[in-house]
């Protein structure tokens, strides 16, 4: 089964981390994802820009374009992992490993449809190209 592990955290708090702390959290996350990757069970990994960079298009008679994220919540969706796990229990184990450092919460959502897409890798390069 494919699962999405969605990372939620208070953006203001994560934004207050010094760079070293941010790097340290990512490094510890890599310990979890590297294991999954070695077994061929890691799909796309995405880290989102802050919600201040978000724009929302809301359905209406005329679709409405709004600055900001979809929902005003205490914790924001900061990114997600796609993992291939045999069971929910296994996905929970992975998420536990991820949430150990840095706090926040991980929401596990089984995937209904998965298309790896055509931009893999290229997207990262494109978004950072000047």
């Amino acid at each position, binding site marked *: 089964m494919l699962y999405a592990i969605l990372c939620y955290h208070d953006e*203001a*708090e994560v*934004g207050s981390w010094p760079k070293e702390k941010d790097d340290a959290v990512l490094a510890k996350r890599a310990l979890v994802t590297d294991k999954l990757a070695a077994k061929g069970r890691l799909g796309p990994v995405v880290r989102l*820009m802050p919600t*201040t960079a978000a724009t929302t298009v809301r359905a209406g008679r005329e679709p409405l374009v*709004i600055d900001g994220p979809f929902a005003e919540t205490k914790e924001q969706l900061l990114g997600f992992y796609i993992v291939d796990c045999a069971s929910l229990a296994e996905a929970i184990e992975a998420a536990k490993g991820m949430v150990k*450092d840095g*706090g926040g919460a991980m929401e596990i959502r089984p995937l209904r449809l998965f298309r790896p897409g055509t931009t893999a890798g290229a997207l990262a390069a494109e978004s*950072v190209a*000047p």
Partner: protein
Amino acid sequence: MNDLGWIDAALTAARPQAVSALLRYFRDLDTAEEAFQEACLRALKTWPQNGPPRDPAAWLIMVGRNAALDEARRKKKQTELPEDDVLSDLDDAESALAERLDGAHYRDDILRLLFICCHPDLPAVQQIALALRIVSGLSVKEIARAFLVSESAMEQRITRAKRRVAAADVPFEAPGAPERAERLGAVAAMIYLLFNEGYSASGGSVQVRVPLCEEAIRLARLLLRLFPAEPEIMGLAALLLLQHARAKARLDGEGNIVLLEDQDRGLWDRELIAEGLALLEKALRHQRPGPYQVQAAIAGVHAHAAQPEDTDWAEIEQLYGALERHQPSPVVTLNRAVAVSKVRGPAAALAMIEPLAQPLAGYFHYFGVKGWLLKELGRADEARTAFDRAIALANTPAEAEQIRQHLDRLKEGAQRKSGRGSAHPAQS
């Protein structure tokens, strides 16, 4: 949780909201700060065992408020004061639950707290110091270190600034739309000053103070979260991100300034650039341009150029023209002249800056640019005079060193015409 660093980050993140709400209750900055301190102490005691509360700011506000109330009651008993303003003020305070639900309140609370620091009577440095102390929660020692003054001198400055703003009496009612816009403008300007203080230090030997830049970006993001649809706030955040993206490339190993044209663009932080450009794009969609958006757009043009030669100087000249219309100033004209020199040559640019001689008579960059233009035109003697003047006006040793390099090149390359021209000294 194996370290307590997360508590620090949570307290820092919750601070603006918590202190500003406590300020609304107590109407006194010192009481609000003390209440917050007490709440933090209690958080350090209980959070490691119980884990973080679901809403740390609401927790801190409630605990801080109760602690300050207890303290006031205790004092009242001890001194047997007949009346206590602080207490009577609290009787009609909202419950913690209502506080949690009322996000709109926070917005004006935090804006008020930031605005209090921007009192027009306060010199820029005091505004910044006050914001760093009250809003960001930096210690006096840290602020003193950033401004390269002694701790006691900084303590004095902050105390004086606090007294000033206490007397200013910023109203506590929810502001109307015009007041809100005015406060937002003042706060944005203060954040911009804070960034500039970090970006080009006004004195001392440290040229770039990264923590000040990072704190300015944090505050700009905070402001943008509170006002997500304000294009100028998007522009401000974009501008700071795009400028800060170059931080690593701006100084060499010896701490000397590396000019924009000579920077190793591989050292530019692509993540910050991407975020800055995303915010800029969002802002421009509103079609309500302003000075921050235009400046961000200029920084964006530089960010888009993989090589200095790829820089779209015609676009930059146009943008500086737009900036002159929004915010006429000789400094902006000076910067436009640099773009003009790239598009139409140094003679045109030199003619443009002649009228600026008087208003910019004491401005380091004016003589730097003037010397550089004269040098490009082969007028070495006049260039040397301008560079000498620039050195005399330099604010930091790094600035002086930058001009000395120009003088050296002038000496060694009097005959040799450089192919692409050398870097101009205004931008780095």
